[in-house]
């Protein structure tokens, strides 16, 4: 922590990026070009730092908001085995949130600051979690499709140029793959179950398919951050490329499940060696992104409420810690990362 603070101080005295020694820029570019990892104490361009904070915060926020649609079914899970699996999954998501906030903190921000921005609507989370879980099968559809899309997106991040993020992703992707298999298995049990269960599974896939495709973000020609992120090797593949890869993975899986994907235009394109698929409703995507999806209000309100209602608990823990702190620390430690040297521009 001390090292990071020192580094930030250096940055501050140097002022704007223009003043930074050109050698540092060259060293950074060379490290990225050579596929080396950028570490917290390394020099990095302000915009690289800001992009990473934005992306990692959004990722962390998605993990914790993403607990809600699934937690919605914990108390109604239809068997004790499924209930245990679902509880473990939601617990993992909280853990992923913790990894990602920690990783983001290496960039000179703090979890508190990021949560405040989430609660104020200044940072986003994945648009997918603004859809409601209406039946038990939705839990399976989220595992199969939503986690599947997340994995397709996130596996390349294991090779992201920023070391702490890449390492967090290695751990997260292992657990996500496990969740995805469990979701698939849940849907398989429904699909092969009674007629009512099969219908429930099909209905869930119908509702989650398109939102899952939207998880890859806007089409390449409308993606504002893509080009720079790819140059910095934060991103390795374009949105459309990952989306196509996901469709190619899902089509045979849907067949194996005995469920249909709700897109009459999906067909194998021999020439291109991949599936063609129908047009995404980008107007819906934009509406959800702007806060007008089915659950935006509910999700953020629950998060804010949990945070506000928990304030007295956090205050108590802090007061207790202060009372029982070792006596020798006469000089109060500075609040970690209380004044980030690199304010992050918000996109929302």
């Amino acid at each position: 922590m001390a090292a990071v603070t020192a580094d930030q101080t250096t940055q501050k005295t140097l002022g704007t990026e223009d003043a930074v020694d050109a050698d540092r820029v060259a060293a950074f570019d060379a490290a990225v070009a050579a596929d080396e990892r950028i570490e917290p104490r390394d020099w990095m361009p302000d915009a690289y730092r800001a992009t990473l904070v934005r992306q990692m915060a959004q990722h962390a926020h998605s993990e914790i908001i993403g607990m809600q649609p699934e937690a919605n079914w914990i108390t109604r899970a239809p068997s004790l085995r499924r209930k245990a699996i679902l509880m473990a999954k939601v617990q993992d998501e909280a853990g992923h949130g913790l990894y990602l906030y920690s990783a983001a903190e290496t960039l000179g921000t703090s979890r508190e600051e990021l949560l405040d921005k989430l609660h104020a609507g200044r940072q986003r989370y994945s648009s997918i979690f603004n859809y409601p879980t209406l039946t038990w099968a939705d839990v399976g559809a989220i595992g199969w499709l939503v986690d599947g899309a997340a994995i397709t997106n996130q596996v390349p991040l294991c090779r992201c140029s920023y070391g702490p993020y890449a390492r967090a992703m290695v751990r997260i992707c292992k657990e996500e793959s496990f969740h995805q298999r469990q979701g698939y298995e849940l849907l398989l049990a429904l699909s092969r179950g009674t007629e009512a269960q099969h219908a429930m599974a099909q209905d869930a896939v119908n509702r989650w398919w398109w939102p899952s495709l939207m998880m890859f973000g806007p089409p390449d020609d409308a993606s504002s951050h893509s080009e720079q992120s790819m140059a910095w090797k934060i991103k390795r593949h374009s949105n459309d490329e990952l989306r196509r890869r996901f469709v190619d993975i899902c089509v045979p899986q849907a067949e194996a499940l005995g469920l249909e994907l709700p897109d009459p235009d999906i067909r194998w394109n021999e020439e291109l060696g991949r599936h063609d698929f129908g047009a995404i409703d980008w107007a819906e995507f934009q509406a959800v992104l702007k806060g007008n999806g089915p659950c935006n209000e509910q999700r953020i309100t629950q998060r804010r409420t949990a945070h506000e209602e928990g304030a007295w608990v956090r205050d108590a823990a802090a007061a207790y810690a202060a009372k029982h702190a070792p006596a020798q620390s006469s000089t109060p430690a500075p609040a970690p990362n209380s004044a980030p040297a690199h304010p992050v521009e918000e996109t929302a």
Partner: protein
Amino acid sequence: MVLSHRLGEWAGHAPVLEEEVALANIALDLLGQARVLLSLVGDEDELAYLREERAFRNLQLVEQPNGDFAHTIARQLYFSVYQHLLYERLAAGDGELTGLAAKAVKEVAYHRDHAEQWVLRLGDGTEESRDRMRSGLDALWRFTGEMFQPVEGLDSPESGVDWGALRSSWLAAVTDVVERAGLNLPAGPQSGGWAAGAGRQGLHTEPFGRMIAEMQHLHRSHPGASW
């Protein structure tokens, strides 16, 4: 199983991310223990999802609604200390639950530590947290008496459980933590006449029926289906 369910209701609502992890972790441990116990008797899902309220034998304490975080922690303290002491005795005994208890005692020791640490923090934190901790401990006190009614099947000497001794060990342990937190346990009896042993006879408090209605609804809506 019932306490696990209640803790599961916290998911997405905890005061801090670490507690999301901790409460879910405890809930999972308890659910795991419940599944082993239920499977000893019959089909776990049949027992969980198809019994009606009057057939459940859980303590009234564990079915109490979560309330605020202090209320949840008070419930957890009372139960985890009890469970830890009980499982220690069962693990040392010679009954059919020795194996289960030996495994579970490690999990429960962690639950107990978690609850105790929070009682200390809330009791010795801020004025508000002290008040809330006190209300939680007070409100649930009347449900603690039934924990020491000998459980059917665990009332013989070879079970390793001396219920009277368990009661005094529990009282000493809980008193110690609560006093270290700067609080006192409520005076008076640990239970009224109605609550004593009521849960063990299938006599529950009103919130319990709604809890299992929610829990069982989906399972009951698809008779014979497997999940």
